[in-house]
Structures are given as structure tokens and as C-alpha cells.
């Protein structure tokens, strides 16, 4: 089943318009998220015609060298989020299970693996890759998942292996990761059949750094009371820093977004009209229930002001040095949120609790994501001990909507909010 490009674009449009209507904001005379994503996906879909290469890359992978090589990066995880938001995860996961993949595997991987074979999903499948780039700084799942796809598409696979930093980023690891950046460049030269442009990488590296700083600035606006944005807005606006990091578009978009948020602050407009309680979210969003959850919390006058997930795309900023881009990129990629020990994660959570001044901590125990979820119980205990704020753990799956129990989760949120209210009104 082959879909024409215009059919495909129509689907992207319908998808974006439908799923995130509430969050789409129009800046005067400027492009919306929809516009950017349209261009991005249409470029990707027509890459065969324009002679550009397509790389599938993990969300924590180094995208800058791809941009510098004029390769179009595609993020299956971002696609997974779209699948989840369209409530198509369950049926795609089921197909993967019929192919022999256990129902206990990550639902991004399951839905992507089955989607590739049928060009299904909300946008009719992803453009076929010319290469795969897998960085295991988020999990071991991506390694297995990309192996599956490398066998299926029969294209070269590059693995950027970032040793886990339980307590430290060792000299040995630093040497290893740095060496792999050189191997990555050689890999790209081979697949693209052209020399790598280091001058161009400098520019891209600069834009990427600026983009991350701006993303941080966007998230920082949530420190205001009331917060002009919620984590649900962040989940939506995140798409650009994930997919187009290293381009001017990201800068333009987030510059406007920061201005927009600041304007809301100036006018005293909050994401939740009557913000009384501020919460912190942990783990990947429950994509198939973002709207419901956001309304649920808003009904309690609670705003999820920040989250550990979208923060990950600017969490390693402290390691980045534009003048030593490749060296610092090596360290920044190895030390992202999911590649560090849980005590260090807890430390970052505590910092966020203070920074955003939150009243409670909501943890999504995500059946799909073991590295993000195992350790949450310890992090929760640390938070309770160090800050004494109430914590709520919700068990769900980010993409696979089949096991979600709305009534049970609803009751638990109500009970949690009662505790928060009591505590705050004492």
C-alpha cells in the first residue's frame, strides 16, 4: 500500500489539527507548530525525489551531524507519541504481538515495528530510512528495536554506545564516546558518499545549543504563578526541539513561544484558570489521555507546571561547550537524565520541586519504559523524606491504551488532590 505525498500531508494535517487543537496557538504573522511539522514531514516524505537521505534516530541521539550533512532525521519515538495520541497504539501493538513480540515490550517499539510492515498509523507510516542511528543513552530497548529495523529495512545501523553513569562519567567512558563521534562521522561520510563539513557542524552546533537554551527559557516561564503553561503544553511544543534541533526554525519558534508566554505572564493568564496547586510530573506522558488528564487536574485547580521528561532536552546543557562541540556533545549525550543513577535523578527532581515550587509529585509508572520507571519508588521515597510533599504513582502505558483504567485513576487523582488541598489549606 503506497500513499502519495499529498495524501500523506493531508493525514499529518488532520492529525495535528485534531489532536492538539486546544494547544495550538497562533502567533501573529508567524508559523505555527503545524506549519513546521507539515514542512518537516513533507520534506521527509519527498526525500526520495529530492535526493536527500533519511536517517531514523533515537530521541537522545546526536542529530547535529545529520543536519550538518543535510540528512533528514526521523524520530520513531515521536511517531510513537503520535500513534499514542491517536489512540492507535493498542491495535498496532496487537499486530506486533501477532508477529511474536511480547506484550511486555516498550509500546513505542512494538507499534513502530508493526507499523513499518503495513504503513499504518496516524500518518500512514514513516518515510523509509537510508540509515539508522541508535544512541542507547535512553535505554537498552532502542538497541534491540533498531536491530529489528536494521534487519527489516536492510540498511546500515550506527550505534552510539554511551556507558551508563551510575555514579560517574569515567575517563574510560569519555574516551570511548568521543571516539565514537569520530566513527559516526566516518559512517555518515560513507552512507552519504560525501565529505563531512565541519564548518557547517559548527553552525549547527551553535543553533542546537541556542535551541536548547530557548527551550529551557520556555520551560522556565512555568516558575511564574500562575504558570502560563502546563506540562501538557510542554509535551506539545517539545516536538521541535526533538525533531529539528540544530535548525533556525527551532530558534524562531521558541523565541516566539517565550515571548508569548511572557506576554501571558504580564497579563496574569495561567494555563489553569484558577491555579491553586502546582504539581510536578515524572516520566513520559500518557499520550492517549493527555487531554483527559489535563482537564482532570485543572478541575481541581491544579496545574502540572513542570516535568522531568521535556526537561531532558535541556537537562545536559551544563555540559555543552560550543567551542568544543564534539567533545562536549559526547559528555552531554552520556549524562542525560535517563543515563544516570537514581540518586542523581532524585537530586534533579528535588531541584525542580524547589525551582517550580510545587505542592505534589505525580509519577507515571510506565509499563513500557523500564529504565525510566524502575527506581521511581526510591525516588518517591527520597522526595517524601527530603521535601515532605505528597506523591502519587499512576500505573499506565504511554502508548498502549488497552490497560488504562480511567475510573481507577480518576479516583486516585481525586484522593491525592484531597491530601494536597488539606495540606495546603492547613
Amino acid at each position, binding site marked *: 500500500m503506497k500513499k502519495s505525498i499529498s495524501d500523506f500531508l493531508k493525514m499529518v494535517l488532520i492529525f495535528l489539527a485534531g489532536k492538539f487543537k486546544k494547544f495550538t496557538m497562533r502567533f501573529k504573522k508567524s508559523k505555527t507548530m503545524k506549519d513546521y511539522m507539515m514542512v518537516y514531514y513533507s520534506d521527509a516524505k519527498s526525500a526520495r525525489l529530492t535526493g536527500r537521505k533519511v536517517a531514523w534516530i533515537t530521541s537522545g541521539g546526536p542529530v547535529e551531524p545529520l543536519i550538518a550533512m543535510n540528512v533528514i532525521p526521523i524520530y520513531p519515538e515521536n511517531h510513537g507519541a503520535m500513534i499514542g495520541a491517536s489512540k492507535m497504539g493498542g491495535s498496532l501493538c496487537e499486530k506486533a504481538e501477532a508477529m*511474536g513480540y511480547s506484550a511486555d515490550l516498550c509500546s513505542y517499539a512494538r507499534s513502530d515495528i508493526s507499523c513499518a510492515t503495513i504503513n499504518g498509523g496516524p500518518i500512514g507510516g514513516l518515510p523509509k530510512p537510508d540509515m539508522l542511528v541508535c544512541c542507547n543513552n535512553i535505554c537498552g530497548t532502542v538497541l534491540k528495536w533498531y536491530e529489528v529495523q536494521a534487519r527489516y529495512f536492510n540498511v546500515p545501523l550506527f550505534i552510539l554506545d554511551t556507558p551508563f553513569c551510575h555514579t560517574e562519567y569515567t575517563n574510560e567512558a569519555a574516551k*570511548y564516546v568521543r571516539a565514537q563521534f569520530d566513527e559516526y562521522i566516518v559512517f555518515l561520510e560513507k552512507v552519504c558518499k560525501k565529505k563531512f563539513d565541519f564548518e557547517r557542524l559548527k553552525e549547527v552546533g551553535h543553533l542546537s545549543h541556542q535551541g536548547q537554551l530557548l527551550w529551557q527559557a520556555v520551560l522556565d516561564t512555568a516558575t511564574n504563578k500562575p504558570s502560563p503553561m502546563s506540562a501538557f503544553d510542554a509535551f506539545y511544543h517539545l516536538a521541535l526541539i526533538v525533531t529539528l534541533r540544530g535548525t533556525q526554525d527551532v530558534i524562531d519558534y521558541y523565541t516566539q513561544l517565550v515571548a508569548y508566554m511572557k506576554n501571558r505572564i504580564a497579563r496574569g493568564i495561567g494555563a489553569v484558570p484558577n491555579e491553586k496547586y502546582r504539581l510536578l510530573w515524572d516520566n513520559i506522558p500518557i499520550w492517549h489521555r493527555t487531554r483527559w488528564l489535563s482537564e482532570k487536574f485543572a478541575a481541581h485547580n491544579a496545574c502540572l507546571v513542570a516535568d522531568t521528561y521535556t526537561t531532558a532536552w535541556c537537562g545536559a546543557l551544563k555540559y555543552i561547550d560550543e567551542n568544543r562541540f564534539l567533545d562536549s556533545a559526547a559528555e552531554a549525550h552520556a549524562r542525560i537524565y535517563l543515563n544516570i543513577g537514581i540518586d542523581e535523578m532524585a537530586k534533579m527532581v528535588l531541584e525542580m520541586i524547589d525551582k517550580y515550587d510545587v505542592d505534589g509529585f505525580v509519577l507515571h509508572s510506565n509499563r513500557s519504559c523500564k529504565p525510566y520507571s524502575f527506581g521511581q519508588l526510591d525516588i518517591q521515597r527520597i522526595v517524601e523524606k527530603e521535601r515532605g510533599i505528597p506523591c502519587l504513582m499512576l500505573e499506565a502505558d504511554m502508548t498502549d491504551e488497552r490497560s488504562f483504567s480511567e475510573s481507577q485513576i480518576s479516583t486516585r487523582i481525586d484522593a491525592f488532590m484531597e491530601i494536597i488541598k488539606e495540606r495546603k489549606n492547613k
Partner: protein
Amino acid sequence: MKKLTELKKVVSNPYAYVRKYKKQSGKKVVGYFCSYAPEELIWAAGALPLRMFGTSENIHLADTHLQSYCCSLVRGILEEALANRLDFLDGVVFPHTCDSFQRLSDIWRLNITGQFHIDVVLPVKLDTPSAKRYLYDVLEKFRKDLGDALGVKITDKMLAKSIKTYNKIRRLIATLYELRSKNPQILSGADFHAIIKAAMIMDRDYFLEALSEIVGQLKKAKPAKATGGAKRLVISGSVCSHPDIYDIIENSGGVVVGDDLCTGYRYFEGIMDEKKPPLKAITKRYLDRIICPAKHFQLKERGENLIRTVKKSKADGVVFLLLKFCDPHAFDYPYIKEMLEAKKIPCLLLDMEAELPPVGQLQTRFETFVQIL
């Protein structure tokens, strides 16, 4: 066979053995959880490397740290530690493999006190020059960290001695595999499993002695009369700490003649070059051994290896023993199954929770499978 009985006794209660051993020998005991732990260095340092298998019984303490969707191996090991049953350990070593083990290491470090804790953050890919170099660097770092923790300097001479011992054990185990593959009747599957397990528990010098004696006797033993066309099976999976499986398979008209388990052949395979600088030789062994699915080496290596194993052991079929919630193995299963099917090798998938399914049910499944072979 007296030695075999002795080994079986140790295996049935490893902690009792270790406690007594510790008292008598004054040696330190270092726990590890995965066949990627470079235990040759632990033994070289004069400590006893002890493989932990965890418990499948009554897991409740671990529930406060790990959600229900974590594999029972990881949950079971944590349970043992939290229940204070591992207080004899002087230290633990966590090699980096799967996501679940990775987090277990963190949880362990934060909750279990009174012992040293070393993470050996191995490379995940094993087929590039930089990964090879890194593995060597990591082992060099481990040599130092472990030496510091145990208060010894681990010299090349100590390493060379340990390598010799391990090579001897591995050669003998390979012989044992061969003997059994030719004449499955000479040693029951359960006994075979006990020997393998003892190799990860006992004083390695003593074990080597016992093993030579057992193998010597088996070599001489006249094969018992073949039990009439038992079907030859290879088992594949992560950790198999269910010795009962062997009995059940044998009672269903099958016999295990080979495996791809990290408590089996994957653990023993690979002789170290005694002429090379010792750490280089150890590095090479970990690079060349049959990989576990949490590591990367080419795209079809595990499937190809399994087919080789089936051919070599003249097996009729393959049984996959997959632990529930074990991601690395679950990801590999579909492609390996496809490769087997293309070669017309029948296979059976057995999903395992912490506890085995009821024996009757298992036996029926095996019988049905054996019949189609």
C-alpha cells in the same frame, strides 16, 4: 559418584556452603548476577565469586522498590538482599547488561549497606575497535577498583593463574557437554544442571578437582541402554535456574543435548589464550564469547549460533524458555524463530513467570512438542 552427590548438596543450599567456606578459608565472597561479570578477576584476587540466582518465593520486600513488570530474576535477587539473607557478601559486582539490571544496581547501592559495590560498565556493542579498547580499559579499571576494595594488588601473575584454572574448568565442561550429547543417558539432565551451577558457587580449585574426577568416571562409564529414541532438544533463554525442567523434558520423551543459556554454554564457552598478557586474554574472551541479547554483535549472530548449536548437537528441536518481562530476549525471539523455521527446525516457546507452570501442564506441552519432532 561421591563427588556428584557432594556437588548436588552444595547446589541445594549454596548459602550454607558459602558461610561454612568463608569461616574455614577466611576468603572474601563477592556476589555477581550475570555471566558478563568478569569473575576470573575476582578469583585471581583471592575472593570467591558467587553467582546469585535470587528466590522465586514470597517476594514482598522487593515490591517496595520494583514494580510488578520487572523480571522475576531481578526482583528475586533484591528480595534476598532486603531479607538480609546475603549478609555474608563482602561485595557485589554489577556488570552492565539490561535496563533492569542497570536499575537494580542503583537500588542496591542505595539500600544494601555493609559491602562494597562495583559497577563494571561494559560496552554494549562488542564489534568495533573502539568498543574493544573500551572493554579492555574497563577491565583494567575493574582490576584496580576490585583490588582496592579487597585490599590486594591484582598482579598479572595472579591473573595468569586464575586463567589457567578457568580454562581447565571450561575445557572439562566442554567435554562433559560432548559426552552427554553423544550419550545423553550417562548423566541425567538435573545432575548435569547441578554440576553447571556448582561451577558458579564453589571454590574453583576444589570444583576443578571434583569435576575432573566426575568427567573421568563418565568417560569410562558404559552408556546405559538408550531409552528408545528420545528426542534431542536444545534450550535457549536467559537464566535457567529450574533444574526440574530437565526432568520434565526427560519424562516427556525428550532430552536436552545443548543450550544457549547464560547459566549454561554461554557461560563456559571461550578458552583464554595463556600466552597473551592476561588482561588482554580475558578481554578477548568476553569479546568473543557467544553474546547475550543485551549486547550487540552484528545483526544475526545469536540466530546463527543457535543453528550451529542445533546442528552440532544433532538436535531435533529448540525450546525457548523466556522469562516474563525480559526485554532483550523477547526482542530476539521473533527473528531467531524465523531463522529456525527457514531451516525447518521446530521450536516451542515457553513463557515463564517466577514459578514454573504446573508440572502436568508443562509435561503435556513437551509431550505434544516431542511428538511432532
